[in-house]
């Protein structure tokens, strides 16, 4: 017997208006469990608005977003949200920052210690565990935030242009780290960017959005083998394909 698998996230006819400004216009799509989905769209098209609707910061004007078939509840569902601003707590050390989410969720102490050690090691910050955020560089801060998110073992990880402010070198490095974390943990990721190359590099599937009022232009499956080479002909071909689809300019 073949059981029909329920999608992890179901977006159903989502519409969001701010006053008279129609931002999201009747958007529907699914995200499968364990999928790495990239959403590309021009600045101001409503990408952040979508995530904020998912996390209940905004109330949708119409439609709904379901997680495992239920309305989202942050106290119950374990969602991690990483934004562009490095939201580390400046009064906590690196390790205390990584532990923060575990404390909030009341994870038992020994288990929390183990998780903190593990994820500090994965993002390469073990040596800096006693440092305060003020003493760290931008990329290290972003790693703290990522370790904090993964340590809570989220069922859904939302990332909103997390690497927008980093230079290219660091971005590649952190993107590789992210992919390996994703492969290791099997968590579901929705990654938002306006950078086409980043979307092609990371995404298992790429959702291309239109300008405002925003709808889905096309969904593209991306099964290029990993690790992906940005100079390879297949990569360039797919990148050009997405670029042609977009032509925001």
């Amino acid at each position, binding site marked *: 017997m073949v059981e029909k698998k329920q999608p992890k996230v179901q977006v159903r006819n989502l519409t969001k208006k701010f006053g008279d400004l129609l931002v999201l216009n009747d958007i529907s799509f699914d995200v499968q469990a364990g999928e790495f989905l990239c959403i590309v769209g021009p600045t101001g098209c409503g990408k952040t608005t979508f995530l904020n609707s998912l996390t209940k910061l905004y109330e949708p004007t119409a439609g709904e977003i379901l997680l495992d078939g239920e309305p989202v509840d942050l*106290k119950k569902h374990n969602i991690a949200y990483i934004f562009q601003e490095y*939201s580390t*707590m400046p009064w906590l050390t690196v390790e205390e920052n990584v532990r923060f989410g575990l404390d909030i969720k009341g994870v038992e102490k020994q288990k929390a210690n183990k998780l903190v050690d593990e994820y500090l090691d994965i993002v390469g910050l073990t040596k800096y565990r006693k440092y305060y955020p003020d003493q760290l560089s931008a990329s290290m801060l972003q790693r703290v935030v990522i370790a904090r998110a993964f340590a809570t073992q989220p069922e859904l990880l939302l990332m909103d242009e997390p690497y927008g402010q980093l230079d290219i070198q660091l971005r590649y490095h952190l993107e590789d780290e992210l992919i390996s974390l994703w492969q290791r943990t099997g968590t579901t990721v929705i990654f938002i960017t306006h950078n086409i190359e980043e979307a092609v590099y990371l995404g298992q599937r790429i959702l291309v959005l239109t300008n405002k009022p925003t709808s889905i232009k096309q969904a593209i499956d991306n099964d290029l083998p990993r690790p992906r080479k940005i100079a390879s002909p297949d990569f360039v071909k797919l990148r050009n394909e997405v670029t042609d689809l977009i032509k925001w300019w």
Partner: protein
Amino acid sequence: MIDSTTNSRFTNKQLIIIYTIISLVCLLIVWELVARFTSASMFLPPASEVLTAFFRSFAEPIGQHTMLFHVGISLYRVAVAFLFATVIGIALGVGMGYSRLFEAIFKPLFEFIRPIPPLAWIPLSILWFGLSDTGKFFIIFLGCFCFITVNTYDGAKNVDPELMGAARMLGANERQVFFKIVLPSSVPYIFAGLQIAVTAGWSAVVGAEMIQSNEGVGWVIIRGMSTGNTVQIMVGIVAIGIVGFILANLTSALERRLCAWNAQKGI
């Protein structure tokens, strides 16, 4: 400015200490000369006389007690009042900064009380509390609690909304947001308030001890005034100055320890 590159023989810290000592010695010399050789000697006893009396006051009592006891009893009064001011000031400040309702209820009341100088409360304090220590606590309390409240309020108002959002995203409830984000991120503001408040509270002790008392550094001054003893007045002033200086330095040392994350910026 002190430039460390040209004076490699001393560290910056040592230089600051050296300059401080030089400035103090100069002050004492000028004071001594003015008091000895100008007509100011009518109201200003020379530095040597005041300092001698000051040191002697540790061995020989002024009134019924030696200086250490006077300082101790005044410190005790400040400490009690300061403790109450800290608890109430932080609670009120953080409450007003965090909750709109709380702010609406208490802010107008607070803004009304804030500009009233602590000394203006003395008559009321005598009527309410008589001549007991409670009245003195009350005056010192009023002298320092506003600083703590205002600073804490500022801190709680200035909490980074990103951080509150991040905590909520991780599933924090309102109580956790309050204790894990709002309170700790207000700590540097609270400390700035405590620092001002310690000094202000210590200054208010003179006023508080003007309500009849038989001991305390404020009393030393008041007593000196009523007996026309200028040297004793100045001995009291010197004691208040020295203790105030020590208190200010102690609190900033404490701040450097407890707010290491915030101090790192400057260094």
